[in-house]
């Protein structure tokens, strides 16, 4: 029974943490080397592609998706997709995919360039080679260098608020049931009546 209880707890919290890790914005400092467009055919991984309804037909099974090809500060490649999230989930309300692609193309900087152009990319999502999924770039702006530090204020505030909300509900839940629990002593026990 105790294994079942802890098993469920671990599964539940893993899902919660994974969900937040996927959905919340993160920042990478990268050097953009290329931007391109590729035909994709979401299948089993369709959950990790956002086919937002921003005017186009969403019933089409094949479509072209913008990609941003980058190298991070540790010189490892990272590829971002660049898709609208529209009015759907996650609630970034991103409609400016084409503008972002133009911006990304403008920042291109190769290894052989005299001075590398470093940019910060705000994104959500995961890169997974086995599933062919890519994080979705949401915003980008130029930064001083590869070791620029970005403090995730939004995540700090949101996670604190979520923690407070969880705590408030938990305390009230416990209080609610504590009031309704059978008393340990009845009228026959000592010190009552």
């Amino acid at each position, binding site marked *: 029974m105790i294994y079942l209880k802890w098993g469920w707890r671990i599964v539940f919290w893993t899902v919660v943490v994974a969900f937040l890790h996927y959905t919340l914005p993160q920042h990478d400092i990268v050097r953009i080397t290329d931007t391109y467009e590729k035909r994709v055919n979401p299948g089993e991984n369709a959950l990790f592609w956002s086919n937002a*309804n921003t005017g186009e037909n969403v019933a089409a099974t094949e479509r072209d998706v913008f990609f941003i090809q980058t190298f991070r500060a540790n010189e490892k490649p990272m590829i971002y997709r660049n898709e609208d999230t*529209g009015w759907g989930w996650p*609630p*970034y*309300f*991103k409609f400016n995919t084409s503008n972002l692609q133009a911006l990304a193309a403008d920042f291109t900087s190769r290894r052989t360039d005299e001075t590398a152009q470093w940019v910060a990319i705000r994104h959500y999502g995961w890169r997974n080679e086995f599933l062919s999924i890519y994080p979705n770039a949401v915003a980008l702006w130029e930064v001083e260098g590869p070791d620029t530090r970005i403090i995730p204020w939004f995540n700090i505030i949101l996670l604190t608020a979520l923690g407070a909300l969880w705590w408030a509900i938990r305390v009230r839940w416990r209080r609610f049931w504590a009031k309704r629990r059978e008393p340990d002593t009845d009228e026959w026990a000592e010190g009552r009546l």
Partner: protein
Amino acid sequence: MVALMRLLIFGLVALTLLYLGLLWHFRSRRRDRMARDWQEAGRPGDRDAYIAEGMAQYERSLRRKLLWLVYILPVTAVALVIWLTNFN
């Protein structure tokens, strides 16, 4: 436009449920407090009239009007996010 409609309709339903739930919660808390006040004030006059007067005061109060923030805050947040993501 279907996606926008879906967001608006589900959002409106969810926020209305939250609004009504909070309204019910605050009203019942206020009613309990008025009943207790009436006891502690030495049972002045009719109990129901005392409570009704307190409830009428609540309906006119700033606290009651602040409950509209349930609608105002999320809409403002969405507008802010749209601006920050697309036009900043």
